[in-house]
């Protein structure tokens, strides 16, 4: 009897490890923290959000304490966040579009064919990162800004609406980041996604105030750039808007619709 030497494949398919959401999450986390843009945008968020708040409180404390003041001091305690929100948009957009711009998205989807998981992992990480950074930034801004308000005797304690505005800032940043992740996924282009998100959230949100009557008031209240901000300020500059939580519910619903549209698109389209 002859012996038959058969060549056996050296690498038979081994299913030792089934890919799970945890794997995708850790991969996306490595991606996010291994590029400089993430750290630059977060540094800008902290710098602008806390720095500008402190600067504005320092500059306005005396006036706010005077009889001429026609703005509530609380509106100034998270003032910097209104500028810093641009960085949340950049972070959210870049988490997605940097992959489309470089063609890396194909490597990603070949490694994780269940694209919904990639999308969910990106969204989750951007939201958590921005919630934590946003809340901490608001706290630092409050501590610095309130020091100057305290000096004029108009300081506010970290409780009630002030406390809510702290994690509210985190929630608003997280919501904007998710908004940006969704728009980035739908448009797949960095400049287009950033421009459109900023235009919708800030330019259009302000322009609708020019529309007269109930329609104008309705639009003003529901535009994402308006509805989202209320929760992030102890007292709002704009008395037309709804209360913090109803406003945030509107904003959250808008973000949810965009995320759903993006989740459908990412699965249906050719990469």
């Amino acid at each position, binding site marked *: 009897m002859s012996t038959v030497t058969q*060549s056996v494949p050296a690498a038979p398919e081994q299913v030792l490890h089934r890919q799970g959401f945890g794997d995708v999450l850790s*991969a*996306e986390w490595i991606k996010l923290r291994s*590029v400089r843009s993430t750290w630059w945008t977060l540094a800008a968020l902290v710098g602008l959000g806390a720095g500008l708040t402190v600067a504005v409180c320092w500059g306005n404390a005396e006036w706010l304490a005077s009889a001429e003041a026609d703005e509530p001091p609380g509106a100034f305690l998270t003032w910097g966040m209104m500028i810093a929100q641009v960085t949340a948009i950049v972070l959210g957009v870049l988490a997605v579009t940097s992959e489309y711009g470089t063609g890396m998205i194909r*490597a990603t989807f*070949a490694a*994780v064919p269940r694209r919904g998981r990639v999308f969910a992992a990106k969204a989750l990480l951007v939201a958590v990162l921005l919630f934590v950074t946003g809340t901490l930034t608001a706290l630092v801004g409050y501590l610095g800004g309130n020091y100057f308000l305290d000096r004029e005797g108009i300081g506010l304690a970290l409780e009630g609406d002030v406390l809510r505005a702290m994690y509210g800032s985190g929630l608003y940043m997280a919501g904007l980041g998710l908004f940006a992740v969704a728009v980035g996924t739908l448009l797949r282009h960095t400049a287009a996604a950033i421009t459109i998100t900023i235009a919708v959230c800030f330019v259009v949100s302000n322009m609708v105030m020019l529309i007269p009557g109930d329609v104008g008031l309705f639009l003003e209240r529901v535009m994402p750039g308006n509805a989202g901000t209320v929760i992030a300020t102890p007292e709002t500059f704009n008395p037309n808007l709804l209360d913090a939580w109803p406003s945030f519910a509107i904003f959250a619903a808008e973000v949810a619709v965009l995320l759903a549209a993006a989740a459908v698109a990412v699965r249906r389209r050719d990469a």
Partner: protein
Amino acid sequence: MIRAQALTKTYGDKTAVDAIDFTVKPGRVTGFLGPNGAGKSTTMRMILGLDAPTAGSVTVNGHRHLASPAPLRSIGALIEAQGFHPGRSARDHLRWLAASNGIPTTRVGEVLELVGLENVAGQRAGRYSLGMGQRLGIAAALIGDPPVVVLDEPVNGLDPEGIRWVRSLARRLADEGRTVFISSHLMTEMALTADHLIVIGRGQILADCSTEDFIARHAASYVRVKSPARAEVGALLERAGLEVTVVDDALHVQGTEAAAIGDLIHAKGLGLHELTLVRSSLEDAFMTLTASHVEYTSKAREEVAA
């Protein structure tokens, strides 16, 4: 093993891949050859589940890639020349790939060493030359130690040393029993690298055979014979068991070498005006085969094909 059945992709009214069937078997290097725009990359993207087929199907190890429980452990691919973020280091690029499929981080060092990037692995990948980028792409393809490896135009941008390296790597992977599928638009490169060829043109399979067969069939040499007594010479050579074709005023003879043909004719005392060995190059053969199937025919190419 990769298996395509009636695989089709259309974009609007343009058919990029037209109901093709093929099987890529393990243990050998299969070249996927075709001019630019023939449907190679579209086919490869469908194998990886990146593009959805309009009709038909393609499976990797018996299942669609989209349903793979361990994607990088079943197929590794180089799809895009620069499929990485320019600001991320090679090591981090491979680390996220490994993490996404639960592959131990130790494998990152192994593949970096395998492709010779271990000393520059900490650099931002945007600083890499095209060749280093290709090596990173190949490292990424091998990270899961997959039984199926797909490389789309892997030698693009590589220097001769790099091309030789890809060739020997492909050989080694095939010898290890893996399925190796490499696309190229360079016939001569594929002739050196591949054991088996699948030739595609305008979305259709034009040839699916061993490289040896392909060369024998499409790039065979022949002897051109011109003689004042063409008919007699033709009959004589045919009687000798040779294959004779009349082309214009010459005979194209296959089956033996020029010297033997000259001797046969001389033995009969017939006149001989020309006796030339004509070797058609592989590149010519490929051009001829695909000439009617190229998407964008340039003037120069038409002349070569003619």
